């Protein structure tokens, strides 16, 4: 049993997180696969694979390439589409005791809005039956791996504002907006999200990167560029979380390269309310349970009785 002497809880827009360890979108499926390895209800939360209104096949060719301490991925938002997700995955999500976050992407503005409306309608129907499967929407305007939509919305604040405003109007569910490190001005972007009524901001998504196969004289990726994640991006992510946390009063969900309890503490000290863990799942299949246990251990050792004591301390 985990020690209950330390308080790891956090709350975002009324959503309870039993600890700050949330699994990042695109690296954890919808939780079912990892649920066979350990009890995923021990996690603070799960952000599901990024969804679009229609199913997407994703990118052809190589989809992953390792770099020193990082990972380039070019999955291209392969996903079953919002409706198939609601039908097939939510019965499982209803059984989980952890914060359940839907990561919503889109190709066009109407796609984002229709997706959000479908999720809201489903939530309303479930609520009538006294059930709940989704606690929060994470709006992804920052995927670097799709040509339309994705990052096209996440670089310039005016374009992003349109999406955030339209989705905010389409759902009453708590709304986090996931920001791109490739944004022109990430702090300005976050302020915009707060002004438009977002309940939180998530950052960072992957950093646009590249790998060239010198013998074949071409990029290893069909799409030319890919998204960099993992320990290599942690310093950048931490700086951005710190920057944004000082500019907005809504909670910040921080992520990028977390592989240890001390990494989590760094993000909390930089101002994050909870964190997300992505690439580390590929380094340690039991990443979630490892981190939750390590975090408790670290807090005991360091005499931290509640994460609130250190949140934003730097």
């Amino acid at each position: 049993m985990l020690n209950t002497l330390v308080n790891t809880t956090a709350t975002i827009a009324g959503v309870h997180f039993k600890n700050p360890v949330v699994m990042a979108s695109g690296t954890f499926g919808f939780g079912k696969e990892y649920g066979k390895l350990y009890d995923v209800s021990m996690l603070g939360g799960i952000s599901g694979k990024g969804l679009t209104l229609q199913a997407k096949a994703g990118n052809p060719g190589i989809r992953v390439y390792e770099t020193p301490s990082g990972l380039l991925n070019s999955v291209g938002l392969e996903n079953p589409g919002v409706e198939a997700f609601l039908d097939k995955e939510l019965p499982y999500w209803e059984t989980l005791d952890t914060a359940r976050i839907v990561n919503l992407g889109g190709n066009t503005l109407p796609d984002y809005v229709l997706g959000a409306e479908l999720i809201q309608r489903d939530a309303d129907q479930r609520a009538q039956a006294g059930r709940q499967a989704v606690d929060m929407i994470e709006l992804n305007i920052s995927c670097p791996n799709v040509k339309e939509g994705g990052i096209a919305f996440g670089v310039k604040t005016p374009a992003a504002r349109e999406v955030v405003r339209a989705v905010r109007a389409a759902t009453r569910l708590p709304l986090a907006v996931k920001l791109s490190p490739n944004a022109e001005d990430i702090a300005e972007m976050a302020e915009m999200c707060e002004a438009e009524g977002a309940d939180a901001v998530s950052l960072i998504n992957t950093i646009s990167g590249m790998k060239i196969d010198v013998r074949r004289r071409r990029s290893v990726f069909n799409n030319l560029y890919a998204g960099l994640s993992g320990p290599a991006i942690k310093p950048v992510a931490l700086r951005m979380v710190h920057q944004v946390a000082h500019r907005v009063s809504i909670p910040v969900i921080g992520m990028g390269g977390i592989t240890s309890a001390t990494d989590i503490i760094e993000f909390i000290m930089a101002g994050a309310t909870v964190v997300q863990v992505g690439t580390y799942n590929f380094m340690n299949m039991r990443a979630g349970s490892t981190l939750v246990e390590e975090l408790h251990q670290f807090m005991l050792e360091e005499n931290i009785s509640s994460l609130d004591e250190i949140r934003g301390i730097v």
Partner: protein
Amino acid sequence: MATVISNERLANGVYHLRVEGDYGGTMGQFYMLRAWGAYPLLSRPLSIHQVNDDGVEFLYHVVGEGTEIFAELTPGDPVQLEGPFGNGFPEVEGRIALIGGGIGIAPLYYCARQLPGSDVYLGFSREAFRTEAFRPLAAELTVDVGGLILDSVDFNRYDHIFVCGPQPMLQAAQMKGAAAGVDGRRPNVYLSLENRMACGIGACLVCSVSCVDGQRKACSDGPVFLAEEVVFHA
């Protein structure tokens, strides 16, 4: 954590790794292995070469960073194993051919043990290895070095054909399978794919395989697919 029993060099860059522990699995399934801490980031998928009472065995080819580290392992060293994963080859009956190309013979040894009396075809580009281990298990053993092993196989003779090898060989086997058939009977051709993997369990979609009915996952829907299901890209 598992422990290395032995790590024997069989040929240039080819090793036979035996690992101790309570590890099972069926033919065609694989494990995700790592013998390092944080870097390289990803674990490496290796097919089950054999399972026995004291552990599991692998046959691997040194190609890069990760397998170079595997090649340094000595008895008593720790390795991390997660698995077994994947669907594996189906339990079938009838006339069976097992066709391996290069390191693709790795999973076929376990198949040969599970399906005694199969015909086994092993093809190598330069140097043959581990072929004698197959001999007592096979009804007929055909070994080819430097040629195209598929040329030795009459697809019409079999009900089921298991293939593992480099992608051009899998594509060629798919074509031969489609063209084969006598009296309306066609062999079921099964291909074991080797896509790059990250999670290994069906969560990240980096191993996606284009199939006639849409995208599937090599790690959890495969690595074994019916040949006619797979759509190969250039």
